[in-house]
């Protein structure tokens, strides 16, 4: 077609309409991708907002597991893990760790005896800088099976409808096994006496490319001493932080890292389902907590313990939670770091 002026038969209006249509379709496609046309999509924003107490989130703090205390220490690999994953973090050696003990609550000022679930986040950095981050909790199973169910749990628990929790449990009967743990398992008076579990499954890849689905736990060297929540409450709202500070000052605390390898038919996508007890386990190293530091100026404060920060040799499995957690943690991190002014007494910023 040679370059000719518009013939009188073609109204520019029609051609302008074509231009508007092209731009309009692109804009609508963009809006759809952004979720603006899909109010039911489970977005990181909705997941994070569902965690907030009725008065709104505690600005400047993590949106969940908001109460915590930092520590530094080491992970000493014994070399056994190299049979499962080629990650350097498993070759025998001692690598620095920055971690955080925490409580599964959105309230950074919650009393320790009011929070059932305790957690541990760590970041291990081997010499090749391929770091491994994780955030584990002391429950043996996760309350629900899917991220959508987790969101439904938050909205049901916060709902004014007295039937909401009943409906939720009817739709998510797996929550009952979590509840029975929450009601029956003994409490302890120390972060050092807890066993912390990944619950989510991941895939380890060895040097030959073989893939195995695994979960792992940090098993405490300290003997758990049961204590009732009433007794813990009497020790004060921050008893756990005081106890771990004194305990670590008196001597380093240790956990053994134990990898559990799934059998082919195990439920790898559902952290609400424990694997049978007889699964193969490999003890791969020891976490040693050497020094406790308050979170306020501590080295863990500005770390996002995103469980998908993995070295080569590890990857996510068919478990949908690590992706949802990564998306939500990122959202929480972006919010809280932008609210640094609200975090108590931190004009100087955190120590790196």
């Amino acid at each position, binding site marked *: *077609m*040679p*370059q*000719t*002026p*518009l013939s009188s038969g073609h109204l*520019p209006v029609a*051609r*302008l309409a*074509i*231009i508007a249509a*092209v*731009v309009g379709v*692109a*804009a609508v*496609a*963009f809006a759809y*991708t*952004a*979720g603006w046309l899909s109010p039911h*999509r*489970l*977005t*990181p*924003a909705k*997941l994070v907002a569902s965690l907030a107490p009725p008065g709104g989130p505690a600005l400047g703090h993590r949106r969940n597991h908001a109460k915590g205390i930092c520590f530094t220490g080491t992970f000493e690999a014994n070399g056994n893990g190299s049979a499962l994953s080629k990650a350097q973090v498993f070759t025998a050696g001692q690598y620095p760790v920055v971690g955080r003990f925490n409580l599964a609550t959105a309230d950074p000022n919650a009393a320790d005896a009011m929070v059932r679930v305790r957690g541990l986040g760590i970041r291990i950095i081997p010499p*090749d*800088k*391929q*770091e491994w981050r994780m955030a584990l909790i002391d429950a043996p199973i996760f309350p629900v099976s899917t*991220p959508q169910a987790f969101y439904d749990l938050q909205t049901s628990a916060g709902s004014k409808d007295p039937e909401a929790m009943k409906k939720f449990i009817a739709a998510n009967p797996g929550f009952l096994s979590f509840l029975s743990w929450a009601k029956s398992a003994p409490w302890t008076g120390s972060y050092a006496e807890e066993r912390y579990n990944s619950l989510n499954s991941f895939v380890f890849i060895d040097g030959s490319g073989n893939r195995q689905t695994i979960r792992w736990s940090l098993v405490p060297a300290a003997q758990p001493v049961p204590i009732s929540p009433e007794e813990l409450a009497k020790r004060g709202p921050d008893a756990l932080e005081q106890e771990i500070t004194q305990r670590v000052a008196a001597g380093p605390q240790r956990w053994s890292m134990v990898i559990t390898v799934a059998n082919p038919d195990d439920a790898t996508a559902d952290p609400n389902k424990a694997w049978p007890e007889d699964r193969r386990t490999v003890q791969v190293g020891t976490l040693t907590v050497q020094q406790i530091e308050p979170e306020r100026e501590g080295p863990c404060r*500005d*770390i*996002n313990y*995103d469980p*998908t*920060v993995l*070295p*080569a040799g590890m990857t*996510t499995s068919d478990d*949908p939670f*690590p*992706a*949802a957690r*990564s*998306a*939500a943690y990122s*959202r929480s*991190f*972006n919010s809280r*770091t*932008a609210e*640094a002014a609200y975090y108590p007494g931190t004009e100087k*910023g*955190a120590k*790196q």
Partner: protein
Amino acid sequence: MTTIRKRFAVPQRLLHWLMAICILSMLFIGVGMVSTAAPKYLTLVQIHKPLGIAILTLALIRLALRFYYGAPSLPTDLPEPMKLAAYLSQVILYALMISMPLIGWGMLSAASYPVVLFGGVHLPPILPVSASLHTLLWHAHYYLAFAFFAIILMHIAAILFHKLIRRDGVFETMAPVLTHHQSE
């Protein structure tokens, strides 16, 4: 730069269309990944980072080609405001193509995230860990992404205006193939 060239040089056209695909994909991936908690979130993030670095690399090559080859002149009868708009849009597009990946890289550095390209290939941090730097860069990355998309929409509208209304040969300067008899 003045030139008698009627079309952009072949490497320039090739890069333009390759980058058009990359950048549009990038913007859709970016806006999609921050709005989902599904497993595809991780896949999108894993594409977003190396694609951003690829765009940065291509943009720098393209800028060098632009200095080397120059650009065809705009039609002499194009009104001055439209010439100015054309010039400014090119400057802004180059600035965004180069700054967005750097802002993203800096943002991850300031948040102490590893910048994983693929497998074991990590990029070093380019900024110190800092909550305030992260916040500044994160806001910039977020808002500039929408500005980038808006400018691309204007760019598309403008070039279609040249092609369909003015029919002045400006589209043909960058067209991947010629749609009519026009000499190079």
